[in-house]
């Protein structure tokens, strides 16, 4: 493994990387969203007279004076309907208008002058109140049972366990709060739309805008090479994007709309709250005989996305009897959407906590209990895992972390005024390989351009492209120029589902090989080529043959050919007889103040079996970033809905807490680096979500070890530990 600096690092730290909100085309106008201040009902009227007369105002779009947007044709974990096409209010903070003015300040100030009258209804806003009447989900089967021969129900299987445990775990609304707020800059050249917009996939934007603007995809050019974090929230397209594009068309000038921090809490989506009731049955030696998880997820009334939170219980630990169920509580709240490791990060918190509780009941080391129930097959369908080395993760992690020093008796280790505890959990995330196309272009200046519609959300994906291309060509990484986030390039994987490297990586390799082949053809067939008619090879960036060698750039220059290029497509994985998933182990130490209860994470180690690691330097950051987000999930994040109003009560970055540097210790990350050759020749499974899964469980388990208090309701704030 060779660590390479982020290819776009210098651009980002010097401010040279241009993000969606950084574009200033000539005659730019600024949009500012108006948002609703009730959660359910309809708009009776909007007094826009004062606002329309305010300085600099160019246009004011409302449901009473909308820009035309056609209905969305398919669901993308975002709004089901485009904004302003009717007077319905479905949640607090919904986009109900767009003010466009000569400056941002003018648009904002004019927006404050609009008076909106509503007919309001009582919103359904409490997840807890809705739990007793949770309903089957809008999609997916409500119940999955996998039972051993002769077993008629999961409860029968549980009853056969020598030791059983049942507990309910809950998680709050969480939200992504990426550093870069959502932003769209749009302009039209005749009937051609150019749009810079923060997204996890430019193709997603093209598809959506084609539907709602009613124009051909070929007329839409989406450009977004840099993204300041997405975490799932820039997958769906949100109200400001079609509004901005349509306003730019109507006004005949470029328009830019940047969401305010407060708007980022409601105009775009969030992770729904959840509840899981987990029952485990075990033999005295710890063998799980039954795993049951009844999961409930919040779901916005504005779309159909929910988290089937219990699903992870079907696949993580071996058991002859498994049961999960899925229900939803529909709420009049902003849109529910994917957020880093959807379903699995919440699912893991419950399952890993329950396992810890079971270990306690069994009088067993929680690590031994996990070892005991490790399985080479996916328990839900008995398919063998493609490449699983979880035992090695456990062993290496336990040794390096000093797990043997954990006291089996909670609340017995102190350091001054701090109670000290150790906890662990299994880390995991599913893997897959989809279809992707990539182009590699070899230029006469000796550089290689690698391009595709992929997105780098800050993950290091573009550096992965550079590394794989450079390795394939045998040239330094610095001579490869990755170009991502442009809808005019070949269709590669969007950034989501930990699938970027597993899907795009093999395509980069194929495209690099194809470009080499094209170069070889040129070398042997071009009339002026010194290699004409010879047997040649391409290695170390050079054409070699007949005792001669020449860098490809020199040969192109000699032949007066600017470049050769090739596009290749890597297909979806054809493998059906194996299951793919990454595994690993989190170990952490948490300190809890004896007097005032603050929990503080003081040590962390994660051992990762995620297949080939293309670039350990950026991969380490990905894992650490997931763990940091998991620490936030465990200890801080809690977007509180006011039950009466449906308003988020703490929708600012001062009040919705995410970890800051002082909350985070040094995080150790170890990679096993076993290529998953059944998934692809590259063998990389993807690491975007892996770090967060298990992190909250590990923290909760360490807090129990430190204090003897089992907190089953996230976040674990100090008031729960007093």
């Amino acid at each position, binding site marked *: 493994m060779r660590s390479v600096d982020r290819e776009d690092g210098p651009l980002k730290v010097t401010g040279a990387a241009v993000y969606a909100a950084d574009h200033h085309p000539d005659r730019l106008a600024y949009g500012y969203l108006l948002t609703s*201040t009730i959660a359910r009902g309809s708009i009776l009227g909007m007094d826009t007279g004062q606002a329309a007369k305010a300085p600099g105002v160019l246009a004011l779009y409302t449901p009473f004076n909308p820009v035309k947007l056609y209905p969305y044709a398919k669901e993308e974990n975002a709004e089901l309907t485009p904004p302003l096409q009717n007077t319905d209010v479905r949640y607090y903070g919904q986009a109900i208008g767009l003010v466009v003015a000569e400056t941002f*300040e003018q648009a*904002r*100030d004019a927006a*404050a002058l609009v008076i909106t009258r509503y007919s309001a209804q009582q919103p359904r806003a409490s997840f807890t109140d809705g739990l007793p009447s949770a309903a089957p989900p809008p999609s997916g089967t409500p119940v999955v049972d996998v039972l051993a021969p002769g077993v008629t129900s999961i409860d029968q299987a549980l009853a056969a366990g020598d030791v059983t445990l049942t507990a309910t775990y809950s998680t709050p609304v969480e939200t992504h709060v990426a550093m870069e707020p959502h932003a769209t800059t749009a302009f039209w050249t005749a009937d051609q739309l150019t749009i810079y917009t923060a997204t996890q996939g430019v193709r997603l934007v093209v598809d959506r805008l084609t539907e709602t603007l009613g124009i051909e995809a070929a007329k839409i050019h989406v450009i977004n090479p840099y993204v300041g974090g997405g975490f799932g929230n820039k997958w769906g397209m949100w109200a400001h994007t079609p509004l901005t594009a349509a306003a730019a068309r109507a006004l005949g000038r470029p328009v830019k709309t940047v969401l305010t921090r407060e708007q980022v809490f409601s105009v775009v989506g969030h992770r729904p709250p959840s509840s899981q009731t987990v029952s485990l049955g075990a033999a005295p030696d710890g063998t799980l005989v039954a795993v049951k998880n009844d999961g409930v997820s919040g779901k916005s009334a504005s779309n159909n996305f929910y988290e089937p939170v219990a699903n992870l219980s079907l696949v993580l630990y071996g058991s002859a009897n498994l049961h999960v169920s899925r229900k939803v509580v529909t709420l009049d709240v902003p849109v529910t959407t994917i957020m880093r490791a959807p379903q699995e990060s919440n699912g893991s918190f419950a399952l890993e906590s329950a396992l810890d509780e079971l270990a306690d009941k069994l009088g067993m080391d929680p690590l031994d209990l996990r070892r005991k129930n490790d399985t080479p097959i996916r328990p839900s369908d008995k398919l063998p895992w493609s490449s699983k080395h979880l035992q090695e993760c456990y062993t290496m992690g336990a040794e390096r972390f000093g797990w043997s020093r954990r006291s089996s008796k909670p609340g017995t280790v102190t350091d001054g*005024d701090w109670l000290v505890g150790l906890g662990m959990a299994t880390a995991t995330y599913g893997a897959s390989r989809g279809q992707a196309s990539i182009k590699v272009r070899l230029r006469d200046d000796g550089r290689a351009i690698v391009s595709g519609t992929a997105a780098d959300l800050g993950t290091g994906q573009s550096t992965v492209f550079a590394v794989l291309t450079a390795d394939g060509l045998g040239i330094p990484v610095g001579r490869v120029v990755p170009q991502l986030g442009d809808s005019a390039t070949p269709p590669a994987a969007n950034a989501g589902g930990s699938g970027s490297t597993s899907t795009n990586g093999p395509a980069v390799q194929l495209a690099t090989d194809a470009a080499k082949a094209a170069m070889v053809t040129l070398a042997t067939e071009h009339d002026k080529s010194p290699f004409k008619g010879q047997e040649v090879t391409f290695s170390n960036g050079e054409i070699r043959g007949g005792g001669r060698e020449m860098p490809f750039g020199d040969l192109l220059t000699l032949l007066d050919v600017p470049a050769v290029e090739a596009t290749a497509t890597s297909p979806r994985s054809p493998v059906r007889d194996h299951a793919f998933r990454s595994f690993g182990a989190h170990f952490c130490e948490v300190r809890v*103040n004896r*007097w*005032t*209860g*603050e929990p*503080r994470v003081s040590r962390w180690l994660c051992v990762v079996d995620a297949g080939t690691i293309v670039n350990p330097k950026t991969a380490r950051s990905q894992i650490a970033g997931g763990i940091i987000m998991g620490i936030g999930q465990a*200890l*801080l994040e809690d977007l*509180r809905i*006011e039950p*009466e*109003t449906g*308003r988020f*009560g*703490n929708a*600012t970055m*001062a*009040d919705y*807490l995410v*970890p*800051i*540097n*002082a*909350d985070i210790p040094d995080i150790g990350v170890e990679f096993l680096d076993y290529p998953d050759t059944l998934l692809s020749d590259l063998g990389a499974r993807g690491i975007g979500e892996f770090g967060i899964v298990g992190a909250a469980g590990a923290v909760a388990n360490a807090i129990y070890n430190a204090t003897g208090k089992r907190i089953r309701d996230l976040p674990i*704030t*100090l*008031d729960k530990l*007093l």
Partner: protein
Amino acid sequence: MRAFDFAAPRGIAGALRLAGDGSAFLAGGTTLVDLMKLNVLAPEHVIDINRLPLRGIRLGPDGLHIGALERMDDIARHGAVAAQYPLISQALLLSASPQIRNMASIGGNLMQRTRCGYFRDMATSCNKRSPGSGCPAQTGDNRGHAVLGTSASCAATHASDVAVALVALDASVRLRGRDGERSVRLADFYLLPGDTPHVENRLRPGELITEVIVPRLQWARHSTYVKVRDRQSYEFALASAAVAVDLRGGKVRDARVAVGGVGTVPWRLPAVEAALRAGQSFERASALAAEGARPLAGNSFKVELVQRTVLRALMEVAGSR
């Protein structure tokens, strides 16, 4: 943000001439500009006072004098402050972020507005911002709200850390208006919300804080500021305690105790001080810290937390007893 006039006078008299109804003084701007962007404050005249001669940190025989424009970070790192009044230094350094501490003045810090989410959101009602409109915090999102000094009209927490330390130390503010100069004890300066939460202090229209004066207190060297919050830094207090202890011959002779994050104003605890002077144990004395508390649904934990915070601060200064 409403359009406003802007002036940057060089002298105090000039600044005071410009001041009056509808005006606001601008020092570091960390509160004022923030709230102007939210339309919570909409002054017609903004008077930049940064050129006024209100600087200097001086330890005299009568105590510590701090010019109102001194920045939080400069005060915190001043040698005499750190040595003689550790609780002031610590309270400042545990506030906000380095960027804000580099900008925010001590006068502005004492004048900072509450972080109550309803006060800051123009779409909701708030008696402090719009008298008589109501207080959604009574039944709404109130985890961060006050339990001491509240009323049915307002439960907004006073946000300053250093004000807690200053109240414990019996500090005063010197005020200048067009009619002259006066000093007010900080403990008297802040007003309980009662039925008029929009009236937060005794400052008269157009009056300016020019100086903070902390009386000499030899044993303030034995002091600390403990701030308890969900995350380690960059957050307002859930509970805090400023404590100084006069420890002689292994005995507590006197003590100063004030708490923050729990009160509508910085909250001095004379009953706890009296119990300590009477020789009661730290445990028993700190149990008096939440007397009169009126918790709401989301912040009842603060009743116990503030007692524990005082206990922890006492033990940090004087060891357990």
